[in-house]
């Protein structure tokens, strides 16, 4: 096709502005006849801060005009956003101006036998929380209080609860999300990957995604890096029962049978080792247990893996060779939510071992070794009370878990199940009825509590179970702690208040400090506000407070992050080497090398329930966001097109848009959800986006939209190594929604 070379609109870094202002091209825009309409969203004030729509913490420039936030842009100075934002980041205004926000403190009261929330003053609400906390401490000891927290603002409450004397502080982002990954890599290389993950997608030549759906999972920097890699000609290999967005860009898509990844990974090892496609020098120098591994996978041929995985032997061989051909710049992406089948740490180990065979740890295009800028902690008084051991697990179980298990704290709330009972919950920013598996158990635990306080921005389901609800303001209305990132370009970022808190909401630091005052813990909050706190740290670190306030970020010198750049590789494992064979696992009675065990099959007429993310939403946190919902208002259940032709009891083919109900193995029924009939998924599973199907009356927009996968996750398999809750073990059948269900 010919391109018409007529003069088209010019754009260039500043150059256009310069010529336009010079007066040389005044007629260029035809300003005299048809004026270009300016919607007027440019801020009269632009405040740099960082995002909290998910937990990636991208730098944001918030435009403010007439006291309102008009738009949110990526901060070009921030290494994670580089001037770009994902859709969620652009939608922060939808959270800020959500009419359903919690506006005033609420206290549960009995009124004529009925429980109701009563709006009270902050004084009254905080007095009540403090009184209940003191009572718990006096009656059971401070350890009986558990804090569940998710999000950057949670740091104030973690500090408060530590000062109060409880070690029972957990985020569902560990045992329900990335925990197995951290432990699997730590066992193999002596360190985990953290967040943002220390991986070099930008320079990889072959990115391998094992069930990770980057591109739908919109971790901004990783998606930017993936696009840069693709633009440079890097290849993708995607292993996923579903044809994900990333699969659409891949050289190879392996539509694996769910739960059989370990079989595929062992067969890949078999090919890489028997055909000597591994990095011989690297393996000799840095690893231990190679001979054991070689023997272990000797019979794990592609032919052996085929009946398990459904991936043909030739394709397994071809992809193993393909991936190995790019080593060491061949990156097995570690994934993020890795709690799938209960053998997750072992699956992650298998991924890490392949990374080791390819020599990609500590190499360009593989796994990186970044560092942090040094920033002193605030000089707090040391915590005076030495608490009992945390109660999230029995003393001998899961010694390798390096964070507290949120699911374990929930278990310990059922009386007599643990060495001592949890009697009170403080819940910050996490909707435990969607983030913990089996909401029935969570509700049962809540019934056993003496007291539960919830601190949140929106009336999520969990707030409906609380005795006191404290309305926090959004991230755009508050200053939190500083974000000191371990990243290839190290930096320190600040979250600054963009506008004043709306309604009677308050920032987390204020709530925590006011509670501390009432608990006799004022010494632990010796600052006026969080800005004073943050700037004291910045000054103590010898950095420039004004620069930080002005640009939102202080960037450090990039340090070497790969062997090529001069890093001497070392491994904080017991052997000081990469452990292909894990003696610690063997000593604890686990398989020292990953072993494949076939997962339970869905019974006839049922499908494995898989769930994941929409690029527009951060689980249930954003599904009430009216702005974001313009782009994605409700979830659908993906059903294979061939299967949909002949579903039992349907009396005709299922079509896209038909409303169905999913019924799981325990008879739990979902809310009605629309079907998406597609070629893009295997026939033995169905898929939906997590975080929809809200039931809270206060969520007037999200309530009743789509269905909740969480309600259907009434079964989970606990990872014996680190206590993660594998949640992809539920089966559903599909029923047509009838008038009574809708």
């Amino acid at each position, binding site marked *: *096709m010919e*391109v*018409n070379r*007529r*003069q*088209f*609109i*010019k*754009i*260039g870094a*500043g*150059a*256009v*502005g310069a010529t*336009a202002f010079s007066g040389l091209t005044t007629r*260029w*825009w035809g300003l005299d006849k*048809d*004026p*270009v*309409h300016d*919607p*007027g*969203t440019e801020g009269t004030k632009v405040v740099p801060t960082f995002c909290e729509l998910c937990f990636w913490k991208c730098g944001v420039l918030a435009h403010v005009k007439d006291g309102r936030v008009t*738009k949110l*842009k*990526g901060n070009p100075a921030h290494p994670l956003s580089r001037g*770009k*934002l*994902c*859709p969620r*980041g*652009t939608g922060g205004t939808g959270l800020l101006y959500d009419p359903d926000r919690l506006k005033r403190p609420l206290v549960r009261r009995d009124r004529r036998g009925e429980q109701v929330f009563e709006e009270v003053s902050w004084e009254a609400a905080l007095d009540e929380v403090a009184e209940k906390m003191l009572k718990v401490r006096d009656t059971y000891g401070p350890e009986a209080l558990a804090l569940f927290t998710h999000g950057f603002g949670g740091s104030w409450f973690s500090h408060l609860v530590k000062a109060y004397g409880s070690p029972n502080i957990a985020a569902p982002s560990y045992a329900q999300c990335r925990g197995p990954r951290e432990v699997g890599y730590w066992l193999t290389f002596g360190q985990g990957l953290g967040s943002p993950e220390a991986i070099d997608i930008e320079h990889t030549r072959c990115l391998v995604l094992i069930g990770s759906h980057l*591109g739908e999972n*919109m971790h901004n920097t990783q*998606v*930017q890096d993936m*696009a840069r890699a*693709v*633009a440079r000609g890097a290849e993708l290999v995607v292993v996923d029962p579903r*044809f994900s*967005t990333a*699969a*659409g*860009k891949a050289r190879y*898509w392996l*539509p694996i049978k769910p739960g059989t990844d370990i079989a595929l990974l062992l067969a890949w090892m078999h090919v890489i080792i028997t055909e000597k496609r591994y990095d011989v020098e690297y393996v000799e120098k840095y690893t231990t247990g190679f001979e054991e591994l070689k023997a272990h996978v000797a019979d794990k041929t592609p032919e052996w893996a085929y009946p398990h995985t459904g991936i043909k032997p030739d394709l397994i061989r071809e992809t193993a060779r393909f991936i190995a051909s790019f080593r060491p710049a061949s990156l097995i992406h570690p994934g993020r939510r890795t709690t799938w089948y209960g053998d997750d740490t072992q699956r992650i180990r298998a991924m890490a071992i392949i990374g080791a065979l390819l020599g990609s740890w500590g190499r360009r295009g593989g796994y990186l070794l970044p560092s942090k800028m040094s920033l002193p902690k605030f000089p707090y008084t040391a915590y005076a009370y030495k608490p009992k051991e945390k109660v999230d697990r029995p003393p001998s179980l899961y010694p390798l878990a390096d964070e507290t298990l949120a699911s374990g704290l929930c278990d310990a709330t059922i009386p007599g199940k643990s060495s001592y009972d949890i009697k009170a919950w403080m819940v910050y920013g996490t909707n435990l009825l969607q983030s913990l598996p089996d909401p029935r158990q969570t509700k049962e635990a809540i019934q056993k509590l003496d007291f539960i306080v919830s601190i949140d921005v929106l009336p999520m389901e969990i707030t409906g179970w609380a005795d006191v609800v404290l309305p926090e303001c959004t991230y755009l209305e508050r200053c939190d702690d500083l974000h000191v990132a371990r990243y290839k370009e190290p930096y320190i970022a600040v979250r600054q208040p963009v506008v004043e808190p709306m309604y009677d909401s308050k920032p987390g630091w204020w709530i925590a400090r006011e509670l501390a005052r009432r608990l006799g813990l004022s010494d632990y909050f010796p600052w006026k506000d969080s800005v004073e706190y943050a700037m004291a740290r910045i000054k103590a670190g010898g950095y420039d407070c004004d620069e930080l306030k002005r640009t939102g970020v202080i960037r450090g010198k990039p340090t070497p992050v790969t062997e090529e750049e001069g890093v001497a590789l070392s491994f904080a494992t017991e052997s000081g080497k990469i452990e292909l064979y894990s003696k610690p696992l063997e000593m604890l009675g686990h398989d020292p090398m990953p072993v494949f065990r076939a997962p339970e099959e869905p019974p006839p007429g049922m499908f494995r329930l898989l769930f994941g993310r929409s*690029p*527009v939403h951060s689980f249930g946190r954003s599904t009430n966001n009216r*702005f*974001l919902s*313009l*782009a994605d208002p409700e979830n659908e259940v993906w059903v*294979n*097109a*061939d299967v949909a032709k002949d579903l039992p009891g349907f009396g005709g083919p299922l079509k896209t848009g038909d409303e169905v109900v999913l019924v799981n193995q325990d008879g739990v029924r979902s809310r009605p959800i629309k079907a998406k009939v597609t*070629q*893009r*998924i*295997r026939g033995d599973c169905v898929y939906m986006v997590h975080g929809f199907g809200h039931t809270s009356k206060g969520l007037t927009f999200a309530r009743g939209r789509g269905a909740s996968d969480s309600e259907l996750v009434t079964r989970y398999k606990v990872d014996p190594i680190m206590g993660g809750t594998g949640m992809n073990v539920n089966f559903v059948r599909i029923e047509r929604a009838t008038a009574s269900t809708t």
Partner: protein
Amino acid sequence: MTMDTRLCVGCQACVLSCKAENDLPEQGFRDWVVSETRGVFPTLYQENRSERCNHCEHPPCVAACPTGASHVAEGGAVLVTHYKCSGCKACIAACPYNARYVHSEGYIDKCTFCLHRVEKGQKPGCVDICPTSALQFGDLSDPDSTVSKLLRSRKYKVLKPELGLEPHLFFLL
């Protein structure tokens, strides 16, 4: 404007950024994402496109406009002057790309290539935000511009080429 289908993940950051930048009414969209899948399991192909007004060389909307509100601005962008528009929707009927809608204030609205930004040397809102840099905007008459270089080095297509409208939104394949 060029739109790289290989890079696009269909995340809709462009859609939401446009809405915020241009303060669009709730039901108004100047751009949208199309995700097309072809083939039969497991041999599938996917194409993601961020679509908007094509700012055609021969825009039928301008020809159909009775008031002169729809016009080709100098530089080539097809625009609607709000105060001249009577909201008669002749342009909506004429546009084969469904790129226009009725604004809640009565006039017909569509993509402006964010000329109010371009005037200041900024990129259009969608281009500016795009996490994958799939969207690029520039001067086709300048052989050194990013868009010119991309069109020289890459295969591309336009939508509905058979209509002969010569669209100026190029989809890189």
